[in-house]
């Protein structure tokens, strides 16, 4: 069979990719404080414990607020840039877009410390909003990458046809453009939300007295007795991420199908 060995390799690779994540629920439900085989028995106690930690609840709320705000801001900025890139030509376009996409490859620690230095120099206090500033910066390139395909798949003559049939540029955007790129927008919101919720380094540097969820988690990793609880929390987080991503992918595909385009792959 063609690609037989490749297929075995690919499946092994998938196992390698998922193995660590698969361990999460295994130990989250394990009735033992030491993370090792053999397993002891089944328990819900670690999940129940999650409900009793006040500091965790604060961190979750903080993270959710940051993630929602980041998702909206990054998507708005992403719409502007992606629309501009797909529809218009202007001198220096490649340079400008390249610069906006730079956080995609820039080590996050560089983004984090440079923002930290500026904020401290300006005498501003750190807090949720400083984390949002940093998260919007790193989420915008992802938003642009998703929205780019949505806007590029949009046949320009559709908008021209609407104008030709009597609509103003604004009502054309509302009646034609927005409905057609809406799946991309939803996908971008979900991805940005997920990135912000999971992001650690920038939050670690820029968070004030109220930690985000990953920063809180980081603090807990030092205590061996907390590890089963961390496993439980991780299980919830990963499950949540997978649900969000699957939803995002569903909308992205629907967007591609709606615009009549050909599906060629994932988010990037």
């Amino acid at each position, binding site marked *: 069979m063609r690609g037989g060995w490749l297929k075995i390799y690919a499946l092994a690779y998938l196992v390698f990719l998922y193995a660590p994540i698969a361990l999460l629920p295994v130990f989250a439900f394990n009735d033992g404080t030491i993370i090792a085989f053999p397993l002891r028995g089944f328990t819900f106690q670690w999940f129940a414990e999650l409900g009793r930690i006040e500091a965790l609840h604060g961190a979750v709320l903080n993270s959710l607020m940051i993630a929602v705000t980041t998702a909206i801001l990054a998507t708005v900025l992403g719409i502007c840039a992606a629309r501009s890139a797909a529809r218009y030509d202007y001198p220096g*376009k490649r340079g400008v877009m390249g610069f906006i996409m730079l956080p995609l490859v820039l080590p996050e620690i560089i983004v984090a410390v440079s923002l930290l230095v500026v904020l401290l120099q300006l005498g501003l206090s750190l807090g949720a909003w400083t984390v949002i500033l940093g998260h919007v910066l790193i989420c915008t390139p992802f938003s642009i990458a998703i929205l780019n395909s949505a806007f590029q798949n949009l046949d320009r003559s559709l908008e021209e046809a609407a104008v030709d049939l009597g609509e103003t540029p604004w009502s054309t955007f509302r009646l034609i453009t927005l409905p057609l790129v809406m799946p991309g927008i939803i996908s971008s919101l979900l991805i940005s939300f997920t990135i912000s919720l999971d992001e650690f380094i920038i939050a670690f540097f820029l968070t004030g007295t109220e930690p985000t969820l990953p920063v809180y988690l980081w603090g807990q990793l030092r205590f061996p007795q907390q590890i089963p609880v961390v496993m439980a929390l991780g299980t919830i987080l990963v499950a949540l991420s997978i649900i969000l991503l699957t939803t995002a992918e569903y909308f992205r595909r629907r967007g591609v199908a709606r615009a009549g385009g050909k599906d060629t792959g994932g988010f990037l």
Partner: protein
Amino acid sequence: MSLAQKIGRMRRTDAASGILLVSPTALYALLLLAAPLATIVVFSFWTQDYLTIDRSWTLANYRVAVTEPIYGQLMLRSLWISGSVTVATVLLAFPIAYFVSFHVDPARKSLWIFLITIPFWTSYLIRVFLWKVILGYNGVLNSTLLGLGIIDAPLTFILYNANAVVITLAHAFAPFAILPIFVALEKIDRSLLEASRDLGENRVTTFLRVTLPLAMPGVVAAVLIVFIPTIGDYVTPRLVGGPEGLMIANMIQTQFLKLNNAPMGATLAVLAMLIVTVVSLVFVALNRRFLRRQQ
């Protein structure tokens, strides 16, 4: 033509609309990326004594960075670790990208890509921590191997050293390497491969003479997209690296948050960026020369 008309005409031109539309995003990046990066560069020429910053221009930080062996050592180790991660990731990723592009039914390609990318988006911190759990002295791997009687004593060379960092990072960045290669392979016109076979090349030589050169842009992108961010990774060395596996990002963090020496941290950040840029440019240039010689 009156001025108002001129402005009206300007506003209607494509270029003006494009610039107007991109400006919020560009301004945001300018204020929150370009300005901070510039500040870092400026900072690297200043010095700090406890809490007061001395704003006279000096190369003192750079002198320290070059003469103190610890910084050079960290930088070299970071380069070495990132390099190993990059090589491992790209070599492992290529067959997957090839498999999905050439052997998977087109209708199921996006499902495969989705499956491959999912782990990348799930809590980075937790994934790294899981490797600590797997590779630890009493970890999953050791307890399983001991339980099966394959080893007598726990393996120690797999945690708290550079190996652990390489394994963990290679796992974390795997999807990032697959995507650009996959995209490059997808772009290859399949009739080119048939033409090559028709002209007498076998499957292996077709791969070497046609597929691989055409996939090179994707491989280059994969290399850069893995190499650049990994060199600045903080979490992995901190969690699984031990003292032997620490990297430059850990030192930058220490300078900023623990030693209160922001200028020294800035200097190290600038040096790290410079080195990454130079290595990347050299790599791209070498690759271009290699491809040209092939033609």
